[in-house]
């Protein structure tokens, strides 16, 4: 019952998802809620926050950026540490999730 409500919300909340595996969005949503949204928000970060919004951004860009943060070719104390905790799957999932969200 809870799962049904939950996936119902997902379908409502997301644009249509032809080729994308629904499970990865589900996992991406959980990861985004637990990790990314603390600073970046779900749809938008705080008006007073210095963090960029992620919703609706290009998935490939998000993946590349996260991988660069993870291997420290792109430097940021905070993002190097956070991306360092993400697996390849996590990165694919959160990037897909945020890319599909309407800002």
């Amino acid at each position, binding site marked *: 019952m*809870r799962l049904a409500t939950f996936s119902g919300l997902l379908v409502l909340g997301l644009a249509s998802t032809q080729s994308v595996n629904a499970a990865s969005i589900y996992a991406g949503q959980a990861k985004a809620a637990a990790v990314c949204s603390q600073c970046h928000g779900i749809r938008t970060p705080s008006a*007073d926050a210095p963090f960029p919004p992620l919703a609706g951004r*290009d998935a490939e860009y998000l993946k590349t950026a996260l991988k660069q943060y993870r291997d420290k070719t792109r430097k940021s104390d905070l993002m190097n540490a956070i991306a360092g905790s993400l697996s390849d799957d996590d990165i694919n999932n959160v990037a897909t999730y945020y890319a599909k969200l309407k800002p």
Partner: protein
Amino acid sequence: MNTTKKRLSKSVIIGLAAIILPFGAQATSDTPKDMHQLYEDNCASCHGSDHGGYLAPALNSDKLKGRSPTSLRSLIMTGSFDTLMPPFYGRLSDDEIRGLVKHLQSTPKQANPAWTIDDIKASIKVYVKDESTLPAKPTYQINSMDDVIGVAARGKYGRGSGSKAVFINSATHKQIGEVPTGTAAHIIDYNPANPRWAYVKTDTAEIFKIDLYSMQAVRSVKTGYNGPGMGVSRDGKYIMAGSFVPHNAVILDADTLEPLKTFELEGIDPDGKMVSSDSGMILGTPFDDIFAIALENAGQVWVVDLKEGFPVTKIEKVGRHLHDAFLTHGGRKLMIAAYDDNIVAAIDLKDRKIIKKLDAGCVPHVGGGAAVEVDGRTLGFGTNFGDCEKTVVSVWDLDKMEVVKQVPVAGGTESPAAHANAPYVAVDIISKDRRARTIQLIDKKTLEVVKTLDVGGHAYFPEYSADGKFLYVSAGYSGDEVVVYDSTSLEKVASVSMESPAGIFSHGRVRYMTRGLSPDEASAPANAPRLPPVGEMKGAK
């Protein structure tokens, strides 16, 4: 592709700004005075101006002894997941964060700072000088002012542009106005005698008098440093406000916000010790021209008569660590929760004494409370903060004053919502894991959980619209929206975006006194439009 490119470059700019600005903008020295100001400007609204804790833990040399400065620094940078603690990375420079950690680890809890009646008087700000220039009726389409729902939006940082009181028309679920409050809005009360006035109290103890017809603040006053306690008298003429810091309370003229009398909150606690005390709940009641105020640490309830000199009757030994309460029986009886005794004490406000103490689960936090009439009985519902082995919502028979049932729920709970016309009592699960996303619904008749809603974020503070048709829930911290459900089908019908929404307050509360009771329970002012009658009423008055 083009849009992607634009977005990319925008992100680079924002990203750069995030990294460069705070460090470029720093012009700090780390003298204790500057660090104290930094603490006041960023931390004190939640952690307490006296470093003694408020919504959030105490931050002082004793409390932080032995903590690694590095871990404290990274906690401030990233914030704390699953709590209200936001990430200060980019808002404070690294030097400022390091300076703050040093300051906090070397500063003891401060003595009760003074905030006198003169300070209160001097803090009054007037935004609309001549109130006769205000519109005579709402400047927006609304059928009844009872349809107004106010949401205390905290803002991610507990201050700044996201901190405001947001007002929604609960018939259309559209925002009808918002009033910036500077720091996190915490409590919204409505004037029982005149539907145009609302009062919003912030975590830094300012009270804004708001004109709901034109959706603007007309005056404000700072009643202390921290503390949510606020009540409005039944005639709409007085406001009483109480603080955690300092330990005092004040009665204000509800019209001008001028302070009329202050009260030092101190007394002998249930263990026989003289203590200075935080202010807990403050309630006006339709039953009489009085305020009731809880002295949290002194375990006393004071009844203040609204007459010459504002005399006080003290009810002692009510319970250890009192906090919030709700009214029943036409406002004659007060049900008040005691965290440390795990009881709710029933107090008769006419006789001004304790009627009975009832079991209330684990660390009872009744929020605004709820009471419903079912099969000839008046049942009260009490939520529990505590995450004990057995988490329950307590149900009491408010006529017989006895426990009817302890309903098992999924976790700790903070606030119950009920409405005479809605089939379920909603409670918010606040346990710090995935359960925090959910609201559970208890069937009024069977007293069992029949449904769990996955709202998202840290879902809390459910509230029904005045007609009972819709259930509003704050998706809290990272959810950044208020979600609206049909109260019978429980289908999601709308969402209203805002930053870190918390408490939700229906204007209907002034009519049904305690959520769940018939709208005729509180004697409504004669000029207010009446809601249609809702079923059988008990002779509770």
